[in-house]
């Protein structure tokens, strides 16, 4: 293929579209389902129920510290399935490309997607490519949908008083990395990176406690704070988390501190909030730590039903603060 940039013809469904898909995308994705190039894929299935999810990705910039929109679009959908307690199996992947976008960038993005899929043990089995005129998009948008097999049956209605709230990693890394990519507040360094990663190992870690896991959610947009607020509402309970127990990378702590952002509201793309019964909290924390999530931490507990469900944070200084939904955009377009 001779073009180095996306042209309108790549989206017209003819020879150029075929070239882009067959010569650029499929060799990287490389699995028998995708290679058939059919309008749909037929896969084996061995479970009565299926978990199905979809997500779109518009992050700007598409390349951010230690990651890009391709890996993010796979990790994002895989993690949504994991959060439902499911083992992710198959994904679809659709690209909306802007005329003029570099084909070398498309390759890097597809490569990151393929690597993330391999790590998660999922196959990208079908997809689509559309091209929009220059000025009608921001380089690249990606949509992924995925299906998975139910594995852990979570049920927030079974969250008991004193149930434990854990996070599987440091908070706010992705949001802070995107902020740094846009604003170059810090000198260039090797430390700043998005936490973007697929989280299937969480399922492995939680397998022995399958019957005591009540809820999981990956804290993307809105961050940890938004998940806490929704959990309080969902369970009609009060909950309290301790700021001292929330793991933060030093650079995230520093960057958010000097810029006035609140890391609790920044997106994570390789993290999981887990609610489990209190009697197994230390075992769950230890299992997460052993399975690749060394920063896992019990950050708080439920304190019982309430007429006015609140997510409270005990601050570093010992004060109490109610977490409230933030309608203020801290950073636009993070995922």
């Amino acid at each position: 293929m001779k073009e180095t940039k996306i042209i309108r013809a790549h989206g017209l469904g003819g020879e150029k579209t075929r070239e882009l898909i067959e010569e650029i995308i499929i060799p990287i994705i490389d699995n028998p389902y995708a290679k058939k190039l059919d309008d749909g894929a037929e896969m084996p299935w061995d479970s009565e129920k299926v978990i199905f999810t979809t997500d779109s990705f518009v992050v700007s910039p598409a390349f951010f510290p230690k990651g890009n929109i391709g890996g993010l679009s796979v990790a994002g959908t895989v993690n949504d399935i994991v959060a439902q307690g499911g083992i992710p199996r198959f994904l679809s992947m659709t690209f909306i490309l802007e005329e003029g976008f570099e084909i070398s960038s498309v390759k890097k993005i597809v490569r990151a997607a393929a690597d993330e899929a391999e790590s998660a043990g999922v196959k990208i089995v079908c997809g689509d490519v559309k091209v929009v005129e220059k000025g009608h998009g921001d380089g690249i948008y990606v949509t992924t949908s995925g299906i998975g097999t139910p594995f852990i049956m979570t049920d927030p209605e079974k969250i008991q008083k004193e149930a434990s709230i854990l996070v599987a990693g440091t908070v706010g890394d992705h949001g802070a990395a995107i902020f740094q990519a846009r604003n170059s507040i810090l000198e260039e360094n090797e430390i700043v990176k998005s936490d973007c990663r697929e989280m299937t190992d969480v399922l492995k870690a939680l397998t022995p406690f399958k019957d005591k896991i009540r809820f999981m959610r990956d804290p993307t947009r809105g961050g940890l704070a938004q998940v806490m607020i929704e959990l309080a509402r969902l369970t009609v309970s009060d909950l309290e988390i301790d700021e001292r127990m929330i793991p933060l990378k030093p650079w995230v702590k520093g960057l958010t501190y000097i810029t006035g952002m609140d890391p609790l509201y920044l997106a994570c793309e390789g993290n999981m909030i887990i609610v489990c019964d209190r009697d197994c909290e230390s075992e769950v924390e230890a299992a997460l730590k052993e399975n690749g999530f060394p920063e896992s931490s019990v950050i708080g507990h439920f304190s019982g039903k309430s007429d006015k469900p609140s997510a409270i944070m005990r601050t570093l200084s010992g004060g109490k603060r109610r977490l409230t939904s933030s309608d203020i955009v801290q950073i636009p377009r993070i995922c």
Partner: protein
Amino acid sequence: MERDPFSRMKFIDEYADPELVKKLVHLIQSDLEDISRPVNLMEVCGTHTMSIGRSGIRSIVPDKLKLLSGPGCPVCVTPSGYISASIELAERKEVLITTFGDMVRVPNSSGDTLGRFPKEKVRIVYSPLEAITIAMENPDKEVVFLGVGFETTAPVIAQTIKVAVENKLPNFTCLSANKIIPPALKALADNPLSKIDGFILPGHVSIILGKDSYADLGIRGVVSGFEPLDILTGIHMLLRQIRKGIVEIENAYLRAVTDKGNELMQKVMDEVFEIVDTQWRGLGVIPATGLGIRKEYSDYDAEKKFKVKYPEENEPAGCRCGEILQGICIPTDCPLFGSKCLPDNPIGPCMVSSEGACSAYYKYERN
């Protein structure tokens, strides 16, 4: 080990040490036992407002102590007419506006903002000096910098104007709405409706001005830093004064603030700016609290160059920002707060910037 440039950053946790916090709260409790009435203290810096909300200080001090948020957010007190005049300048074909980011969101009284212009037309800068570079790169445009801020930003803006003079830049001007804090505090304290017993004085402003600059105002105040322990120390020192009937200025931010302040910066500010009467959004005109550009620098004064007129504009009906900024009521007393007036749709000035009293309350103190 990876080298994280922040791993040695200290004093975030240290200045929030819960054991020391407990000790100070205990001292504050016994101070208050000696005072027979409720006490109202006002902080006059947006960073204090945010820090108090974020650390939950209101939840650990007795209810008898009320912490009020004063006019410490420069964006919030910039009058609506100034926003309208900036928008009018931005409408001119030859003009490029340069500004600190939060100004772009601030609506004038009819809801119009600078945010509606394309990014190339209204450019956000982190330092006013970036505006000089933009002026050099765009010789066919008139680059106007929106000079908004207190003593913390005014010296840098003054220095920027001096750099423009040195470079004989013909296409750079500044539209000054800069303000100074000390006389505004006196005006607040002198207001017969005021219930303020003492001021938590702004740390950053005081780094520039020095502790002594408040000495002749006859107000009770303690210069404080921004961490929970700094603020609680300031409160304890103010309560001690109240208990003993003393009215004086003290310094609880010794690691940053001196008696005389940064004299170099004061000198630059004085060279370029002169004291004028100015309007504060929500408060009206307060005499001798504005910084106008001196005659000698009038070539760099956008007000003169473009014959700018600031329209008289009233705040929307029902908005109580004026009273909030004076400590007469708190944000949750306002009927618009949290219903019609929201951070993404601000009606009054205290909701427009993240450091405004209403915005901070919305984020941290909403029930």
